[in-house]
C-alpha cells in the first residue's frame, strides 16, 4: 500500500495550509500593514490608551508630560510645543503618534518614511472611537474593542443613574490664580469636559459658549450663580494649598455654591486627559454632583 500522498493531493494540502496561514496573518495584521513594534507617543492621552490596550511593551518613547509608572523609565521626546524630532529619530520608531496640528514634524517623519498617527482632540464619544482606531493601527483590535466598550458601558450606566435627577448649575474650573479668583479657566460648552458634566447629571453654566475653555470675569461668575463648583487640580497641589485656595471663593458669598459649601477639588494628573480613565473621572464628578445616586 502506498502511504505517500499523491502529488495532486500534496498540492491540495499545500494550498489549504497556505490559505489558513494567509487568513491568520490578515486577522492579526493591522489594515495599514505591519504591526508597529516601536511606538513613540507625543500625546499623553494616546500613551494611556496604548497602555490600556496592552501595547506598553511596544512603546519606546513618550511625551514630557507622561508620568505614569509604566513609562517612567522611557525616553521623553517633548510635547505639543517642543517635540524633539532628533530624539524621536534616534529611537528608530515605526509609528509616531503626533497631534494633528504638528504639521512640520509630520512632514519630517513622512520624509523619513516613518508612519504617523495624527491625534485630534475631540468630544467624549470620540474617546472610544480613538481607542478603536489606535487598536486597528497597532494590531490590538480585540483589546481596544474591550477598552472602548468598557468606557461606553460605564458612561451609559452613569447616564442612566443620573437621568431624571435635578441638574444643578455647575462650574467646572481647571485653572486659576493661586489664592484668588482671578484668571479663572472653566469648561465651555464644547469638548469632553463639558460632555462629562452632562453625563454626570449637571448643567454646565457655560454651556452656551462654543469653546472648550473660557475665561469668565468675576462679574460673569457672579451672574451665572453656580450651585456647585468643581476644581480640577494636578497632583502637585497640597492639602494646605487647596484649603487656603478654596477660601478665596468666600469673596463671592452670594454664589449658591459658596453658601451651601459645595466647592469640591479633585486632584490627579489625568483628570483633564481624554484617555481611557475618562469614565472613572466622570464617575468621580457624578458622585460629587449626585451623592444620593451612588
Amino acid at each position, binding site marked *: 500500500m502506498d502511504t505517500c500522498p499523491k502529488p495532486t493531493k500534496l498540492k491540495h494540502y499545500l494550498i489549504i495550509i497556505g490559505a489558513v496561514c494567509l487568513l491568520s496573518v490578515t486577522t492579526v495584521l493591522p489594515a495599514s500593514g505591519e504591526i508597529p513594534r516601536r511606538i513613540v507617543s507625543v500625546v499623553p492621552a494616546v500613551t494611556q490608551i496604548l497602555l490600556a490596550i496592552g501595547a506598553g511593551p511596544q512603546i519606546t518613547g513618550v511625551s514630557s508630560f507622561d508620568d505614569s509608572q509604566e513609562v517612567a523609565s522611557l525616553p521623553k521626546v517633548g510635547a505639543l*510645543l517642543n517635540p524633539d524630532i532628533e530624539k524621536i529619530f534616534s529611537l528608530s520608531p515605526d509609528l509616531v503618534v503626533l497631534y494633528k496640528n504638528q504639521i512640520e514634524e509630520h512632514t519630517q517623519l513622512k520624509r523619513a518614511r516613518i508612519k504617523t498617527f495624527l491625534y485630534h482632540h475631540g468630544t467624549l464619544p470620540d474617546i472610544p472611537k480613538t481607542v478603536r482606531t489606535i487598536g486597528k493601527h497597532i494590531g490590538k483590535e480585540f483589546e481596544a474593542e474591550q477598552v472602548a466598550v468598557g468606557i461606553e458601558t460605564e458612561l451609559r450606566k452613569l447616564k442612566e443613574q443620573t437621568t431624571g435627577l435635578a441638574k444643578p448649575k455647575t462650574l467646572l474650573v*481647571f*485653572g486659576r490664580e493661586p*489664592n484668588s479668583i*482671578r484668571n479663572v479657566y472653566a469648561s465651555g460648552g464644547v469638548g469632553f469636559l463639558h460632555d462629562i458634566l452632562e453625563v454626570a447629571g449637571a448643567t454646565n453654566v457655560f454651556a452656551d459658549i462654543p469653546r472648550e475653555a473660557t*475665561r469668565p470675569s468675576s*462679574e460673569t461668575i457672579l451672574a451665572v450663580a453656580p450651585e456647585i463648583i468643581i476644581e480640577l487640580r494636578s497632583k502637585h497641589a497640597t492639602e494646605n494649598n487647596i484649603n487656603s485656595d478654596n477660601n478665596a471663593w468666600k469673596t463671592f458669598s*452670594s454664589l449658591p455654591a459658596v453658601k451651601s459649601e459645595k466647592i469640591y477639588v479633585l486632584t490627579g494628573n489625568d483628570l483633564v486627559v481624554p484617555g481611557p480613565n475618562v469614565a472613572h473621572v466622570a464617575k468621580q464628578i457624578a458622585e460629587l454632583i449626585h451623592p444620593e445616586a451612588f
Partner: protein
Amino acid sequence: MKTPRVVFHLAAFAICVLAPFVGSTSINLYSAFNFEIPFSDNIDAQILFIARIPRVIAGALVGAALATSGVVLQALLRNPLATPFTLGVSAGGSLGAILVIVLGFSVSSPFVPTVALASFIGSLTAVSIVYYLARFRGNRLSTNVLLLAGVTLNSLFSATIMFVQYMADYTQSFYSIRWLMGNLDVSGYTPIISALPLLLVAFAVFCYLPRALNVLTLGADSASARGVNVLATQRLAFFSASLATGAAVAIGGPIGFIGIIIPHAVRMFVGADHRVVLPISASLGAAFLVICDIGARTILSPVELPVGVITAMFGGPFFLWILVRNQQN
C-alpha cells in the same frame, strides 16, 4: 480754541464714575444699593461692589500710573520712544509672575496675591540691576547706560519668559501667555490695597518732579547750570517711575501702549510743560484704560477680551489719527 485743562480732568472723572454702571450683565441698581438686603444674598450688589468697582479703580490706577511713568521716563531719558516698559521693569515683573504661575508657588497671604507679589519682586530686581549698572557715572546717571541696560534686560527677561513658557505644559503656557495680555478683573480690593501705598509714594514724587523735569529735558549740563540737582532728580524720576510701573504691572499685567500714546497725545493738546502734561496724562491714562476695559468686558460678552489687546488695537489707530490731525493743523 484751547480746551481748558479742567475739562480733561472732569471728563476723566465722569468716565471713571459712570464705568461701573456698564457691564456684561444687567444689574438692578435699586437692589444693588438696597442695604436692607444682606450683602451675601445681594447678587446685584456683589456684581457692582466686588466685580465692577474694584475693576474700574484698578483700571484708573494702572492707566494713570503707566501714562505718568511714560511722561517721566521720556523726560529722564530725553527720548520720545521711552515707555514704562523700556527699562525692563515690566519684563522683570512679568518674569516673576510667570515663574510663580508655571512653578505653582503659592504664598498663603490674605494681604498680597502671590502672583502680584512675585511680579513686584521681579520688577524690583530689574530696577536694581539697571540702577547698579548706570550709577557710577560721575555726578549723574548715564541715560545712555540706563536706556541700553534697560533694553538689554528687557530682551534677556523676555527670552527667559519664552524659555519658561516653552518648558511649561500647555495649560501653564496658555495661562502665562494670557497673563501677558493684561487683565484688570481683580475680583476684590486686595490687589488694589496691596499696591496702593507704592502708587501713592510714586504719585507724590511725580507731584514734586515737573519743574525739575522741564529743566532736565534741556540736557543735564543746562539743568545743572540752572541749579537743579541732576543726580537727585534722575534718581527720583527713575525710582518713582519704576515703582509706579512695577505696581501697575503687579495689578494688571503688562498693558502696553498707554505709556507711549497718552503722553504724546496730551503733549499735542497742551504743549510740553510737565506741570500740565503730568496731571492731564494721569487723568487721560486712567480714563483711556477704563474705557478700553469696558470694551474688554462687553464686546464679546460673556467671553472676555484681554485689555492689552484692546489698548493696542484701538489705541494705535486713535493715536495715528491724532498725529495726522495735528500735522494737518
